[in-house]
């Protein structure tokens, strides 16, 4: 069977990934940037989710909150992803079989699909933003997003623990 391990081994052996892994500042600085970007990104996503489920900012129209937060969510999503990919490249063999890392990938895919469905469907449907009452599907999208991102963050922080080797 074709294995991806040699590719990861090659990636790990590259001069620049080795340099970053062995430098006392390389990995910590990328990792800290990753966390700083995620806190901003997920923090704003969660604010939108809390609005969707009706727990906060309920006197602001949904679409208005969404429209004003979306550019900031995107602006922090891009560096979050870039630093995340970089972190993986620096130490691929350490991560690719880690349970929490794999769970994180699955959760990210689910959160992404949920966000995509919300943006393509609910968000574009006629007059959804004028209704002061959040539609049931929008509520569900918010609750799902809240759950998925919370679990993603917890799983991510657990990656350094090799509990299930």
């Amino acid at each position: 069977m074709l294995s991806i391990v040699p590719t990861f081994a090659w990636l790990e052996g590259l001069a620049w990934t080795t340099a970053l892994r062995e430098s006392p500042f390389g990995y910590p600085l990328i990792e800290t940037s990753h966390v700083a970007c995620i806190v901003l990104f997920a923090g704003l996503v969660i604010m939108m989710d809390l609005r969707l489920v009706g727990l906060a900012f309920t006197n602001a129209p949904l679409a208005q909150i969404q429209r004003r937060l979306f550019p900031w969510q995107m602006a922090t999503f891009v560096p979050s992803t870039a630093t995340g990919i970089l972190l993986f490249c620096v130490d691929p063999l350490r991560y690719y079989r880690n349970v929490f890392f794999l769970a994180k990938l699955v959760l990210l895919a689910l959160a992404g699909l949920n966000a995509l469905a919300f943006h393509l469907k609910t968000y574009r449907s006629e007059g959804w933003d004028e209704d002061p009452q959040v539609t049931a599907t929008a509520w569900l999208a918010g609750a799902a997003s809240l759950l998925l991102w919370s679990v993603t963050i917890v799983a991510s922080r657990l990656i350094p623990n090799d509990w299930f080797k």
Partner: protein
Amino acid sequence: MSQAFRDSTYLFPVTQALHILAVTVFVGAIVIGDLRLLGWGPVGQSRASIARSAQRILFWAGLAVLVTGIPQFTTNALTYQRSWLFVFKMYLLAAALLFTATVRHRVAVADEGRLASWVPRVVGAVSLALWMCVTISGRLITYYG
């Protein structure tokens, strides 16, 4: 309690994970207010309305941050006490809390016409910078503490 945290394999890491989750929610509620103060957030709403709604989130998320943060400290209190980054983070935290409860709160709930337009902008920028520095220094304790 500290002994239980030292003995268990799972308790400490799970507390760390819940701590960063609580921090994320807390910072989210700060940032939505700061963006509004900067004039970039949900400007259709008044600064006061956003601040009031965010306040409840700040209270509950802040409580969760403390509940998950304090056991981390007491478990290794002597190590943390010697960590310059931890001490630095605590001073930053005190400054950020003080600034948020006084200046930022006053500006957020003030009549919008009464303040020069640069005032909320500066306050929003300072608040954002302070809270991000608290978050970043907290993360760095793991590496350089």
